């Protein structure tokens, strides 16, 4: 979404900034809605869908990450979502809609148990990061260990549910047309932003801010610390699990290493941080940035050099955290203000 950000200052009306800003947003959104009809080709459309799905997942992480709860365990929730939906469909023929519900509920349960214990026993900072890291490894290893059902490290593909000649099956949540996926991904991404806004408007938002600055002080003025933190954690975990569902149904293949474990958890953390986890569109900017970077490098140096994009990304992350900890969008907005 870096394009939108660049458009903001140019279109802003100094006399009525709020209203003009809103119009600009609407115009950009409308343009975006028409995207599949502008003849941009299948591959760019695929990239945009992937970017939207990751934007949503990074946003889900940042909903709690921005409040000082840096979780290295969101791979667990994504993995639970992705594998619930695929396994229920493949083994029992249960529609992915119910599978998605199961996945979200399961990850809420896990988040409840781990979150409650962590917050009750005041596990914060490094310790919280490392406990959640253990959680994401547990989920990855369980998926691998249950290889008789999950296919282990080789991953698993959902059974095709499309009738001959059909391009879409609502029951199987399978669509062969990318345009449909584009609108689904766009809708879910917008939903993620709306949920962020709702969490911001919720009365507990100020309590969370206080907690993130000083837990003891917050507790001393009567804020129910564990309870308040648990609420935002459940929201974030449930959102992430649904991101896993979306990823599994769109990519049509899941693998323990691409949906769970430490690597994917770190990817979420750093995607959100690179874009700027304190602003609502920050995680989206992070996802777009990573995709733009890897695609640019792919075009420039070709496919045969594995890892160059991640090397540059890793180096940039180090520089970001040292020199602009508020991320790309966060720093841009701060400079403008």
């Amino acid at each position: 979404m870096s394009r939108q950000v660049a458009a903001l200052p140019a279109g802003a009306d100094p006399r009525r900034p709020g209203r003009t800003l809103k119009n600009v947003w609407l115009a950009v959104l409308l343009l975006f809605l028409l995207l599949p009809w502008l003849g941009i080709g299948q591959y760019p459309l695929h990239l945009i869908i992937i970017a939207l799905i990751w934007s949503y997942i990074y946003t889900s992480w940042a909903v709690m990450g921005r409040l000082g709860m840096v979780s290295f365990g969101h791979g667990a929730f994504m993995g639970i979502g992705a594998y619930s939906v695929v396994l229920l469909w493949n083994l029992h023929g249960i529609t992915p809609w119910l599978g998605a519900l199961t996945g979200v509920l399961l990850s809420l349960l896990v988040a409840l148990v781990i979150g409650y214990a962590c917050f009750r026993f005041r596990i914060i900072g490094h310790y919280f990061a490392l406990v959640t890291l253990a959680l994401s490894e547990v989920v990855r290893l369980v998926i691998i260990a249950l290889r008789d059902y999950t296919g282990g490290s080789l991953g698993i593909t959902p059974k095709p549910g499309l009738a001959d000649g059909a391009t879409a099956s609502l029951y199987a949540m399978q669509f062969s047309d990318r345009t449909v996926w584009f609108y689904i991904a766009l809708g879910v991404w917008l939903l993620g932003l709306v949920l962020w806004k709702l969490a911001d408007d919720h009365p507990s938002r100020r309590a969370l801010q206080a907690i993130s600055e000083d837990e003891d002080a917050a507790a001393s003025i009567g804020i129910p610390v564990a309870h308040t933190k648990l609420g935002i954690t459940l929201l974030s975990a449930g959102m992430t699990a649904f991101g896993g569902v979306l990823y599994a149904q769109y990519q049509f293949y899941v693998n323990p290493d691409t949906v769970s474990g430490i690597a994917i958890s770190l990817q979420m953390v750093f995607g959100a941080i690179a874009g700027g986890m304190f602003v609502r569109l920050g995680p989206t900017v992070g996802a777009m940035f990573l995709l733009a970077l890897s695609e640019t490098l792919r075009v420039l140096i070709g496919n045969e050099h594995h890892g160059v994009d991640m090397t540059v990304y890793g180096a940039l992350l180090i520089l970001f955290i040292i020199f602009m900890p508020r991320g790309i969008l966060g720093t841009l907005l701060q400079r403008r203000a």
Partner: protein
Amino acid sequence: MDSIFDIFLLEAVINGLLLGGLLALLSLGLNLIFGVIDVVWICYAELIMIGMYTIWWLHVPQGVTLWLAFPAAVLLVAVLGLALHYFVIRPVLAAEPINQLLVTGGVLFFLQALATVIFGIDFRNLGVRLPGFSVGDMYFSSSRLLAFGVAVAAIGATWWFLRKTFTGVAIRAISQDRSIMPLMGVNPNRIYLVTSAIGGGLAGLAACLLVLQYDVHPAIGLSFGPLTFLICVMGGLGNLIGGFVAAFVFAQFISVGGFLFQLEWGYVIAFAFFIAVMFWRPQGIFARSSR
């Protein structure tokens, strides 16, 4: 049937003990750095990976003897540790603690991807296999025994260094009170650099032992990195003895759990045990009483 089961269980227990020595060495450097600088190097396992590649590259394509390749790797990783502190950690020492954790996460990505660029994604090995040996019906690998011996020796040497040398005492003093030491004429920045170099050197030593047992590939750090952090946390971050004991506890879970069920279940049980312990003793089993 019972007697066979028992002797294999004993084999698993002894193998767990040998694995424990290796895990103790893996976590030693990380723990030392945390205790002194108060920073968790999330990329610690990636430093070990670089060490393993160094040994492989020197020995296999370059034909250098292992007796030279091992010290070279230890030296290189020690210098890497120094550079990591100087260029990456120092600028964020005053920032929020979580930023220090995150910045080394960036280093993790960077090193992993750099190894992919340089060495590709193939699995590499030295082609050296130490012979195994058997005691009664039980079979053990001698590289594991060697690793155990070197690990215990290295831990002993670190212990001696921290107790008996001036620099070692200064390191321990800094870890107890970082504000008063400058007044006593100790330069904390120098101590941090020395500690980082020692931590890196220990990672290099771990690389020498690991490369004898395992193939090296760019993502290998992810396979034992999490385990290393959890051992340190469970022992109480910065508590060397706690980390040592925790390493053996973890190793038994993995070895015996893997023997009774399946390798992955051994890890699952170990990690689940870790989570449970954190709720019981959030600062680790052997939390320092001063905190």
